[in-house]
């Protein structure tokens, strides 16, 4: 990766490996988060378009999938084009999805009867050229199924996001099984940003990048999506005893 060793043999090997991997005719493009610590851990400096990504909730989030779906919606909101959202049981509250910048006109929901037809719809959506992102809430995702999904999204360039959501806490151990997805995230809720007045501040998440193909893992605390679907880093300022400093400054001037 460093330019210090301009070895022709290695670069030749790289191109041969890339050719062997196949399907990479399309130029790999990425969708950056705009947060340096996260983007630097992802190959290419952002979340790869034309690839499958997995998101799961931590703790109770593995069952309700609330934070995971907001994280996915925030990513989908920043893509171009329509978004296909596949579910087996519909309990998403559309106003919340609209609040993080994914307009209701852009999202088409598919309610599939079972996991099998859900995966079929997911794959069909990923094969279609012109969608921004395809999101699906799946419980089980086998290696074969995820490989198919990954190939489908490589072909079309649409981003696939699988929200892993299980019926019971015990089934969530399934998240350890290997799949062909490019990245794997876990989103857990944290206490919100403290406010100087009573109330609930901006939500915070513990964001874990458990797996990233060709990149490193990451564990970071972020503030949840804003109205444009962007994450933010929590500022340390609010924890500082700012009142005292202001008072001191006032005393100094006065």
């Amino acid at each position, binding site marked *: 990766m460093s330019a210090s060793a301009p070895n022709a043999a290695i670069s030749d090997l790289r191109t041969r490996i890339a050719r062997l991997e196949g399907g990479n005719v399309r130029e790999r493009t990425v969708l950056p988060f705009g947060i340096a610590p996260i983007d630097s851990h992802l190959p290419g400096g952002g979340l790869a378009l034309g690839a499958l990504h997995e998101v799961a909730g931590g703790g109770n989030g593995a069952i309700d999938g609330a934070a995971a779906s907001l*994280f996915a919606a925030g990513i989908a909101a920043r893509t171009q084009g329509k978004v296909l959202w596949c579910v087996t049981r519909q*309990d998403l*509250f559309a106003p919340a999805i*609209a609040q993080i910048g994914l307009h209701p*006109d852009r*999202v088409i929901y598919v*309610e599939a009867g079972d996991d099998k037809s859900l995966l079929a719809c997911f794959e*069909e959506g990923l094969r279609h050229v012109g969608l921004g992102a395809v999101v699906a809430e799946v419980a089980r995702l086998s290696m074969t199924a995820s490989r198919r999904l990954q190939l489908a999204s490589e072909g079309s360039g649409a981003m696939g996001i699988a929200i892993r959501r299980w019926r019971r806490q015990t089934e969530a151990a399934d998240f350890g099984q290997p799949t062909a997805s490019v990245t794997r995230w876990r989103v857990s809720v944290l206490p919100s940003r403290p406010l100087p007045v009573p109330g609930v501040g901006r939500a915070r998440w513990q964001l874990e990048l458990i797996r990233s193909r060709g990149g490193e893992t990451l564990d970071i605390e972020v503030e949840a999506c804003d109205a444009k679907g962007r994450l933010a880093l929590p500022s340390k300022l609010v924890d500082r005893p700012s009142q005292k400093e202001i008072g001191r400054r006032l005393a100094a001037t006065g």
Partner: protein
Amino acid sequence: MVLVGRQGNRRLVVAADRAALEAGLRVGMPATKAQALVQGLVVMNAEPDADAEALERLALWALRRYAPMVAVDPPDGLVMDTMGADHLHGGEQMMLTDMVERLSQVGFSARAAMADSWGAAHAVARYVNRTVSLVTVNATCEAILPLPIAALRLPDAIVGGLRVLGFDRVGELLKQPRAPLTLRFGPELCRRLDQAAGRLSEPIEPVRPAEMVEVKRAFGEPIGAAETIARCVGKLVQALSIELETKGLGARRLDLLLYRVDNRIEAIRVGTALPVRDVKRLTRLLCDKIETVDPGFGIELIRLSAPLAEPLTPRQTISSLIEQRDTDISDLIDILGNRVGEEMLYRFTPVASDVPERSFRRVAPASAETGDAWPDHWPRPARLFAVPELIEAIALLPDHPPASFTWRGIRRRVKRADGPERVFGEWWKRDAELAAVRDYFQVEDEAGERFWIYRAGDGEDAGAGSHRWFLHGIFG
């Protein structure tokens, strides 16, 4: 009111409404006798020709809307083979309910039944006292056992003869040895019995409107392989699209009828969200469904028709100089719609209502984009429960958030809270909600999990609600 028709030289009552039946009139009694029994009876002449014509029109409507094979079942019924078509209406039960509702909207009282055979469906629709009945596969025999013999579509003479012998129900008849029955009443009786039980096939001769765009292809040698069928479908779609183009139409529904050598018809129906004439897209939709048909011993004739077609004129595409348009995804909508059902594919659109569960509505994905969104004064939870769950909460009345609450057996201490957001009942729409109030709070527990809870009632007035607490949603 009664309708009077002629039978030979006599004028008989052929139909009577409920009031007339309650007054003691019966179908089949002489018109003069009816008039003598009830004073001020409204007598109208029956018009069987007009009735038959109306039934024919109804059959064409059903053909466009529901199934590829529809035939009239005179004097008062329609028979449809809905195989390969119910997926467009969200399943068999929903399809029947939809039929009955739509007919009742235009003033017909209808009863619908679905069964394995024409005979059984005919009998169940007329003699089971339900508006919608669904006979499950392989339960046909049990379903027709308790029905009266008149349900079997037999001539009056045979029904009368059987009644003389003491037969009342179909079940009793099925238990009897066949030979004596056939000897006495002819082959008709056993044929009808077998048809009702589904042992004897009874092909439907579908109605075909004259103006329908249709192409067909007959084979010298019956075909059966899926690839061969797919190839022929491709050629037929090509021919159909040329026909459609000359008329300036695009297909909204396509019916593929496959006539088998054993005189059965297999059908595939696909629907599209917008009129389509594109050969590739239509072929793809039809070929997706080929695996659902059973070619049996072979197919000798394929017929492709577009029962529902709408005008489709060429449109100018925007030149690349201007900003690029959103790519068209109606083909994806069609593919998914034909796979999971059109109702299962939707977008959410806002409804002007403060009550959360009424603030959205499902619309078809291809419907016009309004650009409307919900007002975002308050944060909304990512997941909303269809039924709010009852929780135990400890809170200071009237307007404090709870200090702690118990949900699904786990007690959570509230660290931070926001609210109340008061939602009033929609008294202008529903009388029962005249005084109803909900106070919503966003609460966060020690672990950082955020919930949307509400108290039914305003905390002061008992008329505003039960003052119990509910959990309605989960924030991410």
